[in-house]
């Protein structure tokens, strides 16, 4: 745990500071210094408030910089993107209108009449599969993966979304979900006493995650028969 070491050090510092302060303040009860106890308390407390105010200034002047340059996005725009992509895919116009969302392309040669298509280990595919039949039988299968932007809590995390894995094997075209990408980040939120007025969910830390729309667009030879082995739910372009 990378955070443990600095955490421990800070813990030790804070606790020893606290103990030292408490002792110092207690000792001053009997010390013949110039300041009285209540004056000392006043001083220490003012120091504390000064530290807090310095932090306020620090935070305002140097606001928290978002590492990795995540961009802010508007979730509503993303929503529209997703819906639109799906529609264009079904309409077969994705190559033109969805080109900005193209992530990966595959090309396979296949001359058979039938092709099994399956998801490895029966897993549920996270991407929608849209199939377009070409006008001719050219023995080539073109696969293209499109995905609209994903975001979490209003920050663009598209770079973390990976395309699925495709493999043309002996028993067919195997589809596989991409390796899970881990996203770790921290977020500053408001106190619960503020959240109860500004948000609906008290005690809950909402994570607004939207993954965007992912589409695997297959262009297959005209007469190729696709046999869906694992209930992928293939959508055919009209």
């Amino acid at each position: 745990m990378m955070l443990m070491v600095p955490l421990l050090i800070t813990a030790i510092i804070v606790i020893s500071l606290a103990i030292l302060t408490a002792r110092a303040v207690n000792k001053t009860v009997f010390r013949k210094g110039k300041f009285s106890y209540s004056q000392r308390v006043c001083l220490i407390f003012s120091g504390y408030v000064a530290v807090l105010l310095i932090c306020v200034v620090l935070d305002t002047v140097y606001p928290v910089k978002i590492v990795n340059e995540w961009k802010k996005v508007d979730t509503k725009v993303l929503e529209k993107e997703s819906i639109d992509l799906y529609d264009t895919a079904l309409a077969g116009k994705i190559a033109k209108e969805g080109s900005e969302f193209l992530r990966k392309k595959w090309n396979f040669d296949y001359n058979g009449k039938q092709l099994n298509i399956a998801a490895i280990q029966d897993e549920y595919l996270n991407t929608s599969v849209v199939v377009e039949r070409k006008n001719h039988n050219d023995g080539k299968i073109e696969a293209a993966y499109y995905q609209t932007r994903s975001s979490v809590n209003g920050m663009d995390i598209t770079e973390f979304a990976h395309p699925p894995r495709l493999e043309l094997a002996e028993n067919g075209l195997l589809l596989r979900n991409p390796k899970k990408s881990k996203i770790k980040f921290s977020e500053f939120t408001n106190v619960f006493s503020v959240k109860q007025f500004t948000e609906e969910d008290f005690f809950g830390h909402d994570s607004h995650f939207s993954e965007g729309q992912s589409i695997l667009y297959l262009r297959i030879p005209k007469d190729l028969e696709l046999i869906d082995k694992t209930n992928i739910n293939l959508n055919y372009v009209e």
Partner: protein
Amino acid sequence: MSLTKVSLIDVVKKQYIYKLKAYSQVFMSLIFLQLLAVLFSMNGVGSMGGSTGGSVELQVKYFSADFVAAFTMLWGFITAILITTKAYRNDDFVFVANRISSNLSNAVFLLTASVVGGITAMLSSYLLKVIVNYFFKSTPILDAPIELLLGIFSTILYVFLFCALGYLVGTLVQISKAFTVLLPAAFFGTLILEGLSGKAGTVANVFDFFFTESSLVLFIVKIIVSAGLLFSGAFVLSNRLEVRG
């Protein structure tokens, strides 16, 4: 020698100023508790995890002044109990006092303490931000604007409510030592019973009454009325207390 005539307000004012100095050690414990809370907050006050969406595994750590506010509320409760103990309560009677003036000046003192506690609790969120930002830069950090005024105001109200509760509890204990056992027993007993029965009980209802109130105006009214009731209860009960020891 002619007799002096005094007015209640006058005496309460003088007692309040006296107490700001005489009870000043409570502010030291405030600093300590808040710093401790900041320390505890450094590993995040909450986290969210899970593989939402299938291809992405999310792990979010949340930072906020939640712990500090909670500790400050606890501090308010303890401080209020403290000033009802003999050593503090009888400080008044060396000089000019009667029970009402003593209680009133205590209430004003607790209000001041709540204001101080609320403000510092909210400001400590900046302290937390600075510490996490400058020392723990391991993961990307999302920022959110801190609602300072609303936070200060609502936290002050919460701390004051706990002060009122502590004051009543402390007064009860002063009246009869039996309450030292009775009150915790009643509280934890109710909690346990409710937990076992699975139903939402009184404690949970009280919790919801305040903590899920989303209208600011209603919240203010709730707190003021409840605190008022608690304090009045304590005032009435302590009116017959003698100054012993």
